[in-house]
């Protein structure tokens, strides 16, 4: 435990060339942005100044209306992740455990998985209406595939000898699941959830930009159509930050033990 702490603790900036490069890149991008903005090379307001974006960001963060939209999107994504994640986990476990089912149905998942889900949006609107229902549905069909596929693959990758160890000690089925299968599959499952989260955000927000009057996706497209560029960039920054935060959180759950090199 102590070792992990030492690895993840942020070291002093100056002493760490990796950190220096990362911060340097951000600084360079910001500087370039500001230069382009004041130079007037592009259309006015297409590249608003950093100050204007910061101002818009500050206004958003004190606007209760914004948090209402943010809450709507967050709830839609969360519900999508729960429904899509659980069904993906169950389907993945079934396909991974049963050779016949896996062989029969996994090709469907492989081919449907990478299909852009937005093409189903009209259907989802007809089935679930123009409200949050169709957005949740878009999130569900987005995150179901990566979670199901990585669960199935994870189940198949379990070292067979670990299962024999469990059997030799006469572990009951629930003990096999809780003490061997799930811990052995933690990494692929968490990776699936991570990918699933990413595509659930895309699916949900994309749906919000199409036909809705609520959510962060709606705000973005609304800012765009009223040509409020600073506000649009501020929204993007917020979505970006939240995505990074959630990803880091999920990643922490999945931080597995170091692997045995074979």
């Amino acid at each position, binding site marked *: 435990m102590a070792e992990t702490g030492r690895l993840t603790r942020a070291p002093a900036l100056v002493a760490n060339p990796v950190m220096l490069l990362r911060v340097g890149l951000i600084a360079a991008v910001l500087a370039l942005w500001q230069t382009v903005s004041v130079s007037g090379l592009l259309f006015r307001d297409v590249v608003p100044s950093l100050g204007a974006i910061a101002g818009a960001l500050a206004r958003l963060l004190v606007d209760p209306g914004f948090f209402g939209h943010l809450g709507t999107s967050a709830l839609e994504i969360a519900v999508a992740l729960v429904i899509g994640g659980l069904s993906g986990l169950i389907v993945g476990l079934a396909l991974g455990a049963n050779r016949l089912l896996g062989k029969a149905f996994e090709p469907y998942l492989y081919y449907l998985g990478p299909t852009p889900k937005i093409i189903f949006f009209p259907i989802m609107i007809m089935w679930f209406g123009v409200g949050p229902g169709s957005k949740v549905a878009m999130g569900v069909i987005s995150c179901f595939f990566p979670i199901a596929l990585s669960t199935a693959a994870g189940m198949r990758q379990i070292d067979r*000898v670990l299962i024999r160890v469990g059997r030799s*000690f006469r572990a009951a089925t629930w003990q096999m699941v809780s003490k061997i299968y799930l811990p052995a599959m933690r990494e692929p499952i968490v990776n699936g959830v991570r990918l699933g989260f990413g595509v659930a955000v895309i699916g949900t927000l994309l749906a919000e930009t199409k036909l809705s009057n609520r959510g962060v996706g709606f705000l973005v497209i609304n800012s765009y159509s009223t040509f409020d560029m600073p506000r649009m960039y501020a929204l993007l920054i917020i979505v970006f930050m939240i995505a990074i935060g959630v990803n880091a959180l999920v990643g922490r759950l999945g931080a*597995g033990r170091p*692997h045995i090199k074979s």
Partner: protein
Amino acid sequence: MKPAGPILVVEDIVKRFDTPDGALTAIDRVSFDVAPGEFLAVIGPSGCGKSTLFNVIGGLIDGYQGRVSVAGETVRGPHAALGMVFQEESTFPWRTVIENVAFPLEIAGVAKAERIERARHFVALVGLAGFERRYPAELSGGMRQRVSMARTLASEPKILLMDEPFAALDEQTRLLLGDKVLQIQQELKQTTLLITHNITEAVQLSDRILVMTYRPGRVKRVVSIDLPRPRTSEIVSSDAFGHYVAQIWSDLREEATRGMQDAEAHSRRERATP
């Protein structure tokens, strides 16, 4: 040598597998018994069905003819009296050493404080005291194999079954781990059945060696090893040791040769039919 009759009796085991080339008899009427506290090695060339025998006795494969009994009771399927140590890397990578060793106690429902206490004893027994909180990936292959052994010993089996536990290790580590096994056996009076293809290892550790034939696996000969105990790996340089090794090799040579010819014929066939 046999105070109270055998503790493990293996009677007329026959195991066949269905293969694309027809039924294959892996082991054919194998019978032997093991006395309490005895160390018996089963040695044979690759393909003599010794791993199959290990899995049959351990109860991990069924569909065989014959009978396995422990202390007079017929066993079929995994049994608490039989503890298995596998050839492959088998530690749980997500558990620390102590949690790995405590695993069988956890399965048996022993309370946490007690199982950690008991596991600690077996970790020390295999010489890994001080490594309790390490993860397997932080240990060497030899240390991990000792973790597996401690884990099985922690279930306090009447009979310890080991399937080539040191096969993946280098010769020197193997000899030193052999010392460890001798010492543990001395300490626990542990009845042990070791599956191996390594003659040195078999002679170094065993009271008796059962030599098996190449496919189908049958008992070819049983050799009693009358080397003094307690032993250490130094025994490998004695005359008597060399004599036993030579004797077993002369038995095995013919079987190993058949195995090799079979493998060569097989790959020739593979090449002939692309």
